[in-house]
């Protein structure tokens, strides 16, 4: 299994520049790793008004429980929600907090 090198914070910067790509080969590996973790407690995007407003949430540990929204976070741009999801998953996968 591919492991994320937590020192490669340049890849976070690359993602921030273009969340929708194109991405370098190394960043593609990181994204795939972040997309294929467990479904439970996965950070996700929640669209609260179509095409206009997005939040970030975290999947619950079982069926029937609500998605927990990250408090105080609302974006008017999908890409910003995607950037936050990337960073939160990076932190969860590497165990290292980002500034």
């Amino acid at each position: 299994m591919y492991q994320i090198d937590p020192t490669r914070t340049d890849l976070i910067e690359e993602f921030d520049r273009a969340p929708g790509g194109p991405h370098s080969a190394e960043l593609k590996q990181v994204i795939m790793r972040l997309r294929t973790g467990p479904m439970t407690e996965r950070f996700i995007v929640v669209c609260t008004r179509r095409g206009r407003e997005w939040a970030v949430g975290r999947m619950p540990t079982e069926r029937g429980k609500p998605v927990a929204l990250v408090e105080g976070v609302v974006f008017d741009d999908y890409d910003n929600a995607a950037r936050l999801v990337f960073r939160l998953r990076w932190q969860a996968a590497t165990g290292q907090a980002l500034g």
Partner: protein
Amino acid sequence: MKKIIAYTNVWTIAPGDTLEVKVSTYGVPRYRADLVRVICGDDDPDRGIYREEEIVAPFSGDYPGRTQIMPAGSHVCVPSSGELKHLKSFTVQVWVFPTTPEKGEQGLVSHWDEDAQRGFALVVDGSGAAALRLGAGAGKVVVVASGKPLALRRWHLVAASWDAATGELAVSQGFAGSPFEADSSSSARGKAAFVAADAGDASLLMAALPLSRSATGQTTRCHFNGKLDRPRLTGRVLSAAEIEALAWDNAPRERERLLVAGWDFSRDIGSTRVADSSFNGLHGHTVNLPSRGVKGFNWSGREQNWRHAPQEYGAIHFHDDDHYDAGWDTDFTYVVPDGLKSGVYAVRLRADDDEWYATFFVRPRRGTATAKLAFLASTVTYMAYANYRWQVHERFAEAAEVFWTTLDRGDAFLQEHPEFGLSTYDHHWDGSGVRYASRLRPVINMAPKTPLWSFNPDTHILGWLEHAGIDYDVITDEDLHHEGVALLERYEAVVTGTHPEYYTTPMWDGLRAYIARGGRLAYLGGNGFIWRCALSDELPGVLELRRAEDGIRYRDEEPGEYYLEFTGEYGGLWRRLGMAPQALVGVGTVAVGFDKSGWYRRTPESFDRRAAFIFEGIGDDEILGDFGILGGGASGSEIDAVDTMLGTPPHTLVVARSEGHSENTYLVPDETGFHHSAMEGTHNPKVRADMTFFETPGGGAVFSVGSIAWGGSLPHDGYENNVARISGNVLRRFLDPRPFAMPE
């Protein structure tokens, strides 16, 4: 969070028929209802193409809100009888295959009055062990448990008895799994210091326990996950040897004079009937569609078809999240008036800042047509996708779709409310695949203003038809299933939606006969005509699917259970039945990819004079559909291609072929014998859509684009673009009654 949800008794309706609207609200005292015609349901504000028209209707107005509940969980119900009421000593037994023995108390077979605490209940207890509860009311309840958990997904013979003369109770579970595994057999005895009392008029239940009669909506609780086989009830205490003999006996009434009931699930597979094979007639019925035609405790593996060996398919698989009919009360009705234009309509419900569209399809009065073109709404496919949840259940869905999981309010609501039922893309709580999907419940994604999959992208085609001034009737899959070719023959041409994926055999036969007899079909979609499914003759509005063999799917079918219970037919891909979509419409699915779509280029065959009408106004070198809502192009999501080995008619013209597919667009499982590193769009030439045309000897013709994304390109540039032009060229010629001629 949702504040209002609803559903209707039917999805397809004709003038003179009555629509029943069933509404539930959450925390709002009133709601507003209006009728709208849906023209384009894509409400992305940046596109500005959403269009609905309010229609005057007698039901328009304000209504009081109320909450209605969803009774989920399958079980068997047997009405009470004299035999049950007069039962003294007894033995109850059943083969049990638990799939969640750890989940808490689960009913197996019970005749129990929850309010009076009388009767008996054979259960899986909180520790996963078989147990018998006996009650005589007034606090007189005794339980005896085997004390050992049942083994997960292994058969056990579970039995319990009560001796009215001695007060002795006994319970046992006999492991019938592999000889390589630990034996989970166990038994226990107990004694009651009272005389047990019967449960009176309470129904005998299997796979559930009753709720108090004061409960509203739901009548059962403690639903069992797993399979039961050959439940028997005898009016005396049997020895272990007698229990064993009776458990294996196909005709227990011959062996046991005091047999009260011997239910035989191998009879009436495909129906809700549960037959009692004793002479007492204690017949029952299933509730909420448990799965039948499934392998029994004695399945030998020599037969794969339940019809050939019904005695080896005598089990029923129950799930606590099975669902068929919500059974809600009706809030108001609407009799569709004569003169209401055929089309897609919705009852728009608004409560506070929330809204819901209960969507339905108005067809012309039966036996008539009001346009030359029919839009065939894929209602069976909409049913298959009803309340799909792969985005919250499937670990690798993001890898397939190449997006971060993005939920809207409806998705988040479904995550919190499993009781609204699953789609055929989902797994039950116990891990088994979902085979049934009903429309008799609120379906969150069969509406405008929902994500662009299944129903809503089809409204891109409707929006374009309206813009282009092409008059159309709307008919549905369910209409085609019931009426066959006669429904279609009233039309010069039929146009599909973007994804007509699921077909019953009567639908397939009807469409094929229509084409053969001179009909014209414009298949403006992809991944069409893929899965054989079935509708029930007994129960309206529910689809059955068995995903046999391969195909794009999130679950494998259970081996040995590839035959549909509703019809007895072999399920799975039409391709694997020897009837590939290529033989019906020229093309069949080859690849899927959801990040980026491609475009088409004309082929030399497009300059054949047979195809001239398709390309009127199109340049020789013009790139076709390098724009669109789904992945930015007209060829994408799920794409189809010709294959002469699979039956593409030899005179088929491939008039355009797609390119530009991404590295995330992969061959489908049925297109590859083994996985390798060149299965995707940048390396594999089979990853492409073929645009095709062929005539039939009956004067008909078929035009196929082989791409789900095609419809998403129609709205581009105000519906004025080369995808719209080609689509319009085809439909206008198809509506011209002059017959097509076969090429010489």
